[in-house]
């Protein structure tokens, strides 16, 4: 049975007709034509479909689309500003942190959320944050390099764009979500407990 809902994606409202079973991933790809989020495992294990809902990473293959109507959703399409890539995107390119590229949108979304909570993560903290994003090409070393390279380039709002440029949060409130001050106890590697 179809139901009309409003999905707020990257600061834009998409009125879409969904069935009960429509997953957020399907709604984004098929209804909003935002195909950046990839379908990998369909079981929440691989992270290729990761998007941010109210600033927090979730696997969109496990989300009922109707359940996130009205929430702020951010996809990979929403992180660059025009032709200016997000610092995490730039760092992934510079470090060669991708091979086949399927995991990359999810990796970048989780990395952005991670750097907002932990602006200067250690390698272990990056690995802990990316625990739910699998790269089947197994190029993890350069991915960790890229996240660390991007760390210094995020601006104070955590939105990713250097000061002086228009802040993406002007159009996308989800990227300006409340920051936890260094989230101690949050994304610390399990071993430190």
């Amino acid at each position, binding site marked *: 049975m179809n139901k009309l809902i409003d999905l707020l994606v990257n600061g834009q409202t998409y009125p879409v007709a969904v069935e009960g079973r429509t997953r957020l991933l399907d709604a984004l790809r098929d209804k909003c034509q935002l195909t950046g989020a990839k379908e990998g495992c369909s079981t*929440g294990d691989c992270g290729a479909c*990761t998007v941010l809902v109210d600033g*927090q990473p979730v696997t969109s293959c496990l989300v009922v689309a109707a*359940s996130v109507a009205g929430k702020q959703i951010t996809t990979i399409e929403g992180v660059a500003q025009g032709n200016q890539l997000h610092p995490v995107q730039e760092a992934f390119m510079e470090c060669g942190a991708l091979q086949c590229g399927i995991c990359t949108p999810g990796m970048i979304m989780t990395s952005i959320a991670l750097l907002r909570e932990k602006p200067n993560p250690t390698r272990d903290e990056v690995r802990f944050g990316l625990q*739910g994003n699998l790269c089947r090409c197994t190029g993890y070393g350069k991915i960790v390099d890229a996240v660390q390279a991007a760390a210094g380039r995020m601006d104070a709002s955590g939105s990713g764009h250097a000061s002086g440029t228009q802040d993406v949060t002007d159009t996308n409130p989800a990227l300006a979500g409340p920051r936890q001050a260094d989230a*101690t106890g949050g994304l610390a590697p399990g071993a430190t*407990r």
Partner: protein
Amino acid sequence: MRDFEYHAPATLQEALDLLSTHRDTARVLAGGTDLMLMLTERVVAPEHVIDIKGVPEVSRYEWSGDGALTIGATTLFRQLETDPQVIDRFPGLSEAASEVGSWQIRNMGTVGGNLCTASPSAEIGPILLALDAEVEIAGPKGRRTVPIGQFHTGVRRTVLEPDELLLEVRIPAPKGRNGSNYIKLKERQKMDIAFVGVASVVELEPGDGVVKQARIVLGAVAVTPIHAEQAEAKLRGQRLTDELVVEAGRLAAEAAKPISDIRASADYRRSMVDVLTQRTLRQALAVAQSR
């Protein structure tokens, strides 16, 4: 996945009415990390899915003045993982929550959903049992309180009737010098299912180092989380010496009733219960001694 009607009740009464009307043709949706998987794999095919995330009564998260914690059914693992008060007062609970799935999964997965899925290897059951938690259930006839030890009745089975809803979990305030610890043994660091999980809670008498009460709960080695009762009894009124910790490990291994499966053999699981019981006891003791 078969289509279903999606309901988002805004009140507890509305949710209970939907459950009473649709009973076996309905499934409750909280975080969706288990249900969506079961729907995708066609393990279940409900006609109605009732999303309870908008129901205030299942969303409570409150500390009482004395340090007791009420955890609404839709509380996220991420909340328990990061709440500094949980890390301080119930470290074992925070450790168990941080062992669930990935960051993404912990941003979606809920305590109530995890308990209701009732997987024997679930992380949160053993530590809640070790912390003497109880659950509050609502149904058409009113509310009832069930000790967490009676909530799970078997593999993927609980005491919940089809028209009932798990509202919240309540953990009593930690008493005196109290420490807890949870260790999950798995092949990979993250995104894996436990071979064995052990939760220990140690409460010391004030002043001296004598154990007033010890709780040792084993996960993934029986159909539900179980107390290692003989090991617990052995420690009561004793000073936790190395010899005694080793003895507790041996007794806990005897209490385990593991199976052999694709992840591990029964013998290996039993041996690991011994090791993890010792480690969790030592860690819980260290926390208790630091109070």
